[in-house]
C-alpha cells in the first residue's frame, strides 16, 4: 500500500467536485438558517430542519469523507450501526412521552 502510493500516480478527484459540494453546503446551511430567520413553525419547521440536516450530512460523508468512492465492505460496516442509534431514538422518545405524561399527571392533577 505504501509502495503503491509512493511509486504510482494516485488518481484523485477533480477540483470541481469539491467546489460544487462546498457551494452546495453553503446554500443548504443558508437554507437551514433561513428556517429560523423567517420563523417557520410546527411540522414545516421540523421537516425542513431534518431535510437540510440530512442533505448536509450526506454530502459531507459521501464526498468530503470519500464514502461515495469507498468499497461497499467499508461503507456497510460504517452505516449499519446507525440503525442502532435510530432504534435508541425511538425507544427514548417513547420513554420521554411517558415521563412527560406522568409528570403532568402528578404535578397538575396531584397525587391526592
Amino acid at each position, binding site marked *: 500500500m505504501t509502495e503503491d502510493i509512493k511509486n504510482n500516480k494516485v488518481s484523485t478527484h477533480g477540483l470541481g467536485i*469539491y467546489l460544487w459540494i462546498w457551494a452546495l453546503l453553503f446554500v443548504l*446551511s443558508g437554507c437551514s438558517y433561513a428556517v429560523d430567520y423567517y420563523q417557520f413553525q410546527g411540522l414545516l419547521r421540523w421537516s425542513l430542519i431534518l431535510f437540510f440536516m440530512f442533505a448536509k450530512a450526506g454530502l459531507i460523508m459521501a464526498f468530503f469523507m470519500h464514502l461515495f468512492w469507498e468499497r461497499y465492505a467499508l461503507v456497510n460496516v*460504517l452505516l449499519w450501526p446507525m440503525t442502532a442509534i435510530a432504534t435508541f431514538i425511538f425507544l427514548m422518545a417513547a420513554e420521554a412521552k411517558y415521563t412527560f405524561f406522568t409528570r403532568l399527571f402528578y404535578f397538575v392533577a396531584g397525587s391526592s
Partner: protein
Amino acid sequence: MSNNLSNLPKKFKGLTHDFSSDQVTFKGVNWGKAMMWIFLVSDTFIFSCFLISYMTVRASTPVPWPNPSEVFALTMFGVEVPLLLIAIMTFVLITSSGTMALAVKFGYERNRKLCALFILFTAIGGIAFVGMQAFEWTKLIFHDGVRPWGNPMGANQFGAFFFMVTGFHGTHVSIGVIFLLIFARKTWRGDFDTGRKGFFTSMKSNYVAIEILGLYWHFVDLVWVFIFAFFYLW
C-alpha cells in the same frame, strides 16, 4: 494489494467477496484509515448519546424550554438578528471542511506546499470557530446568567446540555486544531515526501495521514451539522 483492486467485484457483490475472502477485509483501505473510521463510529455513538439524552430531557420536562432563537440572538446596529453568531460559526466550519478536502486532494497529488497551506487555512478556521464559541459561552455565562443547574429563561436543564454538548464538540475542534498545526508543519517540512518517521512511531509516514486527519476534521463538521439542527434550530 490495491493494484488488482479494479479486478475485484464491486458494490454488494464486492461486499460479500471482501467479507468471504482471506486476509484483509477492507481491500485497498489503509489500516490507519480503517481505524480512524472505527474510532469515528464510536465517537458518533458518544455524540448520539448526548443528543438523545437531550431529546429525552427536553421532551419530558413540563417547564418551557428556552427559545434558542432568542437566547442566541445578537443585536447588530440596533437590530436583533437571531442565531447570527451560530450561523457565522457554521459557515466558518464548513469553509474549513472545504479547505481540508482540498488539502487531502493536493496531498494525493504530492503538491507539498499547497497541501500544507490548505491545512493551515483549515487550522485558522478551527481557531476562529473556537474563538467565537468562547465568546458565545462568555456572553451566556456572564451576560445571560446561564449555569449548568439553572438559567433565567426556562427549563433548568438547558444549561447542562448546552455546556456538555457544545463543550464536547469544542474540545474535538481544539484537539483537531492542534493536530492540524502539527501536520501542517510536518507536511511543509516534507515528511510525507521523504518518508520521515513520526515522533511516536517507527513507521514511515505518507500522504494517507492527511486523508486520515481530514476524516477526523470532516467528522467534527458533521457533528456540528447535527448540533446546529437539534440544539440551535429545533
